[in-house]
């Protein structure tokens, strides 16, 4: 288990205070804007000063055990190849070809970062971190700006990256597709820690009768489905809105 006990903030003001244990595998870290997700990842990674205890199976995590993807990190005036070379040399990247191939970066190497689209720049930023071989990966919105192709590729790789992967997202479908564990923050405190399936909450039901489509939210899905059917509706989709609620 990865044990986190962190209290961090800026200019003496505590922004996040979290104690949690996370099992091996992929964990989604969710919460509304300003809930402390980025600060928590920064603190766990050691990028900012914090009261911090991070252990794997009772052993403290060393600085070279963690790979951390922040927002940004590349100089818009520099070429992609120069930036990657700088980081990989300083950080000791061990699987450069894997990252370049996964993120399809060969053609972008000679271009300036500032000339890239947001999604292309994010692929280059991801390559910095995915080329590292570490035990724990902390990825702050790794899917931000990626198109469907690369989004699928990155989500598919998360499980293979390392022993523990924690990523933040505002996308419930990404949680569903990749996460075996969920951490939710609200106001800098832990609001939920557990498997996504353990969330009890409201469900959204989409049903149709002829050309009329209705979407109903309820916390008693079985009864509502029966009721809609008795009224002549055919139920098209039943999905949990619990993860979405944690993101609001």
């Amino acid at each position, binding site marked *: 288990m990865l044990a986190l006990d962190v209290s961090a903030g*800026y*200019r003496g003001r505590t922004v996040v205070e979290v104690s949690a244990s996370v099992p091996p595998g992929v964990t989604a870290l969710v919460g509304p804007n300003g809930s402390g997700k980025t600060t928590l*990842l*920064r603190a766990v*990674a*050691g*990028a*900012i*000063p914090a009261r911090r205890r991070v252990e794997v199976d009772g052993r403290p995590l*060393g*600085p*070279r*055990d*963690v*790979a*951390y993807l*922040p*927002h*940004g*990190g*590349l*100089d*818009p*005036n*520099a070429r992609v190849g*120069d930036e990657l*070379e*700088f*980081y990989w*040399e*300083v*950080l000791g990247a061990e699987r450069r070809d894997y990252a370049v191939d996964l993120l399809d970066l060969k053609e972008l190497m000679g271009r300036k970062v500032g000339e890239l689209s947001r999604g292309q720049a994010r692929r280059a*930023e991801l390559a*910095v*971190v995915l080329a*590292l071989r570490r035990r724990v990966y*902390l990825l702050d919105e790794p899917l931000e700006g990626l198109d469907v192709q690369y989004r699928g590729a990155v989500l598919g790789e998360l499980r293979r990256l390392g022993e523990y992967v924690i990523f933040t997202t505002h996308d419930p479908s990404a949680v569903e597709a990749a996460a075996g564990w969920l951490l939710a923050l609200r106001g800098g405190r832990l609001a939920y820690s557990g498997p996504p399936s353990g969330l009890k909450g409201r469900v959204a039901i989409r049903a149709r009768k002829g050309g009329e489509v209705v979407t109903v939210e309820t916390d008693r899905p079985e009864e509502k489905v029966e009721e809609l059917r008795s009224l002549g509706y055919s139920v098209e989709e039943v999905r949990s809105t619990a993860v979405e609620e944690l993101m609001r």
Partner: protein
Amino acid sequence: MMRPFLRRVWRSGRSYYGANLAVNGALAVIIALSAAFLIPLIRPENIRGIPPGMSPQLAYERAVAVVVLTLSLASSIGASATAAMVAGGSIQADIRNGVYEMLLGNGVELAQIARGLLAASLSAAAALYLAALAAIGAVVALEAPAAMPVMPAAALAMLASVVSGAVLIVFIGLTKPELFKMATGVGATKNVAYTISLAPGVALLFSMLPFFGGLDLGGAVAVAVALSSAALALSAVLAVATPRVANREKLVSQAE
């Protein structure tokens, strides 16, 4: 670890402040070359207020030596500003672009970053110092060989000016990066960080002014050597202290 930082600082410092670097570099060259025009204007018969007992020839040699010392320091301020801009420009850009957050979050120690930046900044200082020293040295050798004995003191003062600027800009960049912001005063706009980094060189330059009147070359050299040694010693202390007092939070949160 040093080499990637050397390459990065020279590359990004150049790309962010290319125009300013060119202007500062040109200024340093102009100051050095202005010595070629100023020195011939000093003639024994033009020197007034020669202290009793001093021959006009000796007074002339001392006047030229004090001018050489002063112009050397003025030239070194141009070199110092250029070197500070190479390192400071890179630090400013890297804070804004989140480079230190990427490095610190992936296990790079603050001390490693500080050492890399100090090495890069000192490399810029060394290159520009040698260029300024060569320019001044050539002018003195050609036009005022009698002033050559003052060159070791001038070289030391120039070194102190350039090195203290190079160390100060890294110290400020890693401890109080907010000083890179522009400050406006009465009729002036200045970048506080660069202004502070030039302060030792400017102080050295102004310390020479009282010696013009009395032609006290011995006093000028003694003051230049004493102040330069103090500035170099202080720079060494700051260089050692920088990794210890660098502010991790500011390097990460200033980007926002």
